[in-house]
């Protein structure tokens, strides 16, 4: 049995096969399951491609061409980005700008933070603060506070005198 050529099956699915030849092909398909399966797969591709419609609503090519004929300059059309793609582009641009700014700042920033003033020996209060004597004076388990009191009271100082 001579099977149908694939190009004829494609043209049958697109409706371009001449009527006389188409009748012969259809008659063959009724008796040949293999060719019928091949035709169904061709038709499946043809149907799938039908989904791909192009949207030309609101497009005015003549205006662009007329402008180009008058000015001699190519009309640059606006980018056909979807709103989602615009958001991603904006986010990417912001991230790049932040990264560049951070890098530029690190290269040019100098440490100019003020250093803390060095305390000079002045009043007793200042000395106590610098030496953190408040810590020593706190009642601690080691008895440092008690030892300190002992050392600093007048009676004890008198006993220690030779």
């Amino acid at each position: 049995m001579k099977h149908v050529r694939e190009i004829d099956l494609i043209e049958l699915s697109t409706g371009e096969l001449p009527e006389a030849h188409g009748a012969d092909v259809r008659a063959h398909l009724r008796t040949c399951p293999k060719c019928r399966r091949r035709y169904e797969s061709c038709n499946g591709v043809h149907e799938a491609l039908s989904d791909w419609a192009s949207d030309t609503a609101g497009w005015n090519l003549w205006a662009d061409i007329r402008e180009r004929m008058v000015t001699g300059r190519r009309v640059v059309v606006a980018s056909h980005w979807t709103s989602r793609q615009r958001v991603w582009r904006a986010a990417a641009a912001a991230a790049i700008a932040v990264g560049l700014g951070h890098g530029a700042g690190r290269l040019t920033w100098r440490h100019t933070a003020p250093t803390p003033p060095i305390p000079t020996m002045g009043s007793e209060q200042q000395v106590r603060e610098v030496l953190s004597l408040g810590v020593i004076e706190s009642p601690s388990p080691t008895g440092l506070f008690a030892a300190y009191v002992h050392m600093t009271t007048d009676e004890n100082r008198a006993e220690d005198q030779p």
Partner: protein
Amino acid sequence: MRQLASGQRDALALLVQRHQDKVRGLACRFLGRWDGAEDVCQDAFLRVYETAAQYQPNGQFTTWLYRVVANLCWDRRKRARREAQALPNGSWAGWATNDEMPVERRERLERICRAVAALPERQRLVLVLSRYGNLTRAEIVAVTGWSLPAVESCLVRAYRRLRELLSDEEDGCGGRD
């Protein structure tokens, strides 16, 4: 075309209005870029205007117009290849889909766009002229200048390849589920 040859711009406006959708659809589907297709459309009609005096009415005007469009698309692709500019895959579906589309339809369209983008250029051109330009095999021969067996071979291979690609995509989707 006779009016156009005598310099009447209104005749060009009429031709543009009548054929712009088809021309744009062909260019978009072959190039996969909306902005590139717009350039091709402008160039094609300007070339029609410039060469109107040389037009010989021994065939359909659309065949002649599509030949101009096909040559411009082909040149653009050759230039892009020379400059090592690959068509970004993302742009193929970008012009054919929009955010208002249902997700299923958008995914189906993207599958189709990816499958067509994966075809070799000769097969893609013949497929686009046949399926979306509604040209017969003989007309495609007139547009491309290729032989009839070459055109038929391109069309058959394109359909086979699309069948494989679309069924692979569907299997892949089913596997993920």
